[in-house]
């Protein structure tokens, strides 16, 4: 960028050589700024933003039911978010959580269709396994393309999403259609042994513990195992890892399969815990929202718990605010604005503003002061 000359001072923006990591409070500020940004649109729409936000908050956290619904939404976001975060740590851009989620949901449902009548424990366990494997295999396609054919994984994983969703449509419209469903697309409702146990009178189900367990397992693996050490090394400096003789290709494959497997588990818990059937609307865009969840958490596992609950609250609260006359897309807008501001903040924090006083002497510039902003 060309420097700006004002009143004998040279102002330029340059990459900050010291700044490596953005502090956590930057994320908080970014979220607040995003809410303020959206508040502007609420004002334009003739609504008082304070009313809207308090309505959203009470819708998402104000009652036991609201809270359980927020946590319910957080389950698939947490699992998918953890999945993509693992891949992003080593700079593998998996955009395919949506498709891996769908494949997990399909595989879990296949157990209910081809092996009905099993006991609760065995069918749930099998469904979980099937979900993980299907998600992992779907991500393996991306991993192979990336590792061995140098195909851009963003395009590859994104395109596989559409294939997975169309495959889902095919299944629910044709072979797996509920015979008693009057031709409406969707499988039959699962039997009670195929449903994840839920809290009495609420919809919050066992999947929440599964998601927390996955977070914990990941945190422990990364911190205390050899594989975790390799992962950390790879994320810190890929070249150093390569020179140290690490098999980077294999690591990418393993990471992508875990990433996809987690999204697959998310798909399984969603069909088994919430929808209790496979239908077209099963995704709700969790795989894409998971990208926001992961970045908001700065790829930190504990952060993912918090950010997935936040995103769940935005979705749950987003519908509550319609009653005061806001359009349904407000929740989506808030999510988008949050991601925009968080990533914007990250970029800005890597730069600093340098102000130099230009001395009248020929070819001599002395930097008299430096001011860093954000």
């Amino acid at each position, binding site marked *: 960028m060309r420097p700006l000359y004002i009143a004998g001072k040279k102002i330029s923006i340059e990459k900050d050589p010291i700044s490596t990591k953005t*502090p956590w*409070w930057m994320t908080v*500020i970014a979220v*607040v*700024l995003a809410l*303020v940004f959206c*508040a*502007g649109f*609420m*004002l334009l729409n*003739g*609504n*008082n*933003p*304070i*009313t*809207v936000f308090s*309505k959203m908050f009470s*819708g998402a956290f104000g*009652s036991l*039911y*609201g809270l359980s*619904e927020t946590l*319910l939404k957080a389950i698939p976001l947490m699992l998918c978010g953890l999945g993509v975060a693992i891949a992003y740590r080593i700079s593998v851009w998996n955009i395919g959580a949506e498709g891996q989620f769908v494949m997990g949901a399909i595989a879990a449902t296949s157990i209910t269709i081809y092996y009905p009548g099993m006991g609760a424990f065995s069918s749930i366990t099998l469904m979980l396994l099937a979900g993980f494997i299907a998600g992992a295999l779907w991500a393996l396609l991306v991993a192979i393309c990336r590792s061995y054919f140098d195909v851009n994984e963003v395009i590859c994983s994104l395109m596989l999403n559409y294939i997975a969703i169309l495959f889902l*449509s095919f299944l629910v*419209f*044709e072979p797996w*259609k509920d015979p008693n469903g*009057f*031709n*409406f*697309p969707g499988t039959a*409702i699962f039997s009670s042994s195929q449903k994840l146990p839920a809290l009495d*009178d609420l*919809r919050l189900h066992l999947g929440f513990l599964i998601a927390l367990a996955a977070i914990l397992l990941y945190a422990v693996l990364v911190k205390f195992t050899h594989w975790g050490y390799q992962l950390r090394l790879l994320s810190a400096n890929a070249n150093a890892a390569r020179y140290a003789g690490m098999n980077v290709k294999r690591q990418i494959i393993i990471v992508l399969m875990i990433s996809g497997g987690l999204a697959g588990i998310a798909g399984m818990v*969603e069909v088994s815990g*919430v*929808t209790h059937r496979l*239908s077209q*609307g*099963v995704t*709700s865009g969790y795989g894409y929202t998971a990208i926001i969840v992961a970045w908001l958490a700065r790829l930190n596992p504990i952060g993912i718990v918090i950010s997935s609950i936040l995103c769940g609250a935005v*979705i*749950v609260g987003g*519908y*509550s605010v*319609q*009653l*005061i*006359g806001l*359009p*349904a*897309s407000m929740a989506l807008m808030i999510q988008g604005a949050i991601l925009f501001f968080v990533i914007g903040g990250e970029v800005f924090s890597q730069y600093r503003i340098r102000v130099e006083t230009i001395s009248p002497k020929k070819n001599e510039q002395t930097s008299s002061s430096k001011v*860093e*902003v*954000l």
Partner: protein
Amino acid sequence: MIKKIFIKSVICAGIISSALALTGCGDSKDDMSLVAAKSDSPDIAFLYIGTVGDEGWTYEHNRGRLYLEEKLGKKVDFVENVPENADAERIISQLAQDHDIIFATSFGHMDYILNSSKRFPKVKFLHAAGYKSSTNMGNYFGKNWEASYLTGIAAGSVSKTNKIGYLASFPIPQLVYNINAFTLGARSVNEDIEVNVIWNNSWYDPANERSAAISMADEGMDVLVSYPDSPATIKVAQERGIWGVGNSTSMAHYAPDAYITNPVWNWGVYYEKVVEEIKAGTWEGGSYLGGLKDGMVDLAEFGKNVPEPVKALVNKEKKRIISGEFNIFSGPIKDRDGLERVGSGEKISDEDVLTMNWFVEGVKGSLSN
């Protein structure tokens, strides 16, 4: 370092607080509507699958809601864009906490409203176009097949190529009996008519609807019928100089030259009636099926280019249906494999129409999307 962070924090805090102060200036009229006093008249909420501006299905339900607001003299809430998935159950349950009557207006909301109805036994739930009910959940619909038949007469009369394209949403009974009624109407005036069905697998997808309509026009079909909620299809008919039929609401202004007519809904009459019944305690749940006779279903005004004799014929048949003299599903009716489904002198009961899963003679296209 600490000093730097401090300065940054102060700057940011300043920006945020001034922004918050700014946003706080909005007027507080919304707060007023939120604390609407609980009175004798029930608090009512509507659930829409689309947006109130979709100019089709949801638009008509919203017109019914506004009618109800006017009649009751109080605000009737609504939530739009409610998907046909597990989100619907949460939204219904949240509404059930502070509303007495809830109308859900899409087929796919059915199982979710049923679940919620069990959790909130004191709230009355009404579901459009479905078939499940419980003690506090009823369903309601109208015999739009009657209007589809009349539309078919008009379309069959104006078609020159004898090929009609029907863009349909999902292969559920609701579409099957409308396509059948339309085809019976069209073939009652022209036996050579064939109705080609294309499934769109969506209630609202203008981009897809448009490309489907273009391909139907390319195939030489000169009447395009669209069941989904957008006017995309009849706009194509206008561009191509052929005929167009919409659904749910009058769409003449989108295609003034091409427009024939189509079935329209008048939900408001029913909404007022059922709310009065619930208030009086005479509502018993179950199913309600309106029709041309009670005005829940009607035919839109004809487009300007529809010939007078066609209008006269349609109006004559409409009178016969309203008087009960004529049932559109009276035999003999053959299915498209040539099997006689309804014998001469017999007719199909309303219950059997509502679960219809076979096409009459003259319909082309697969029944499994």
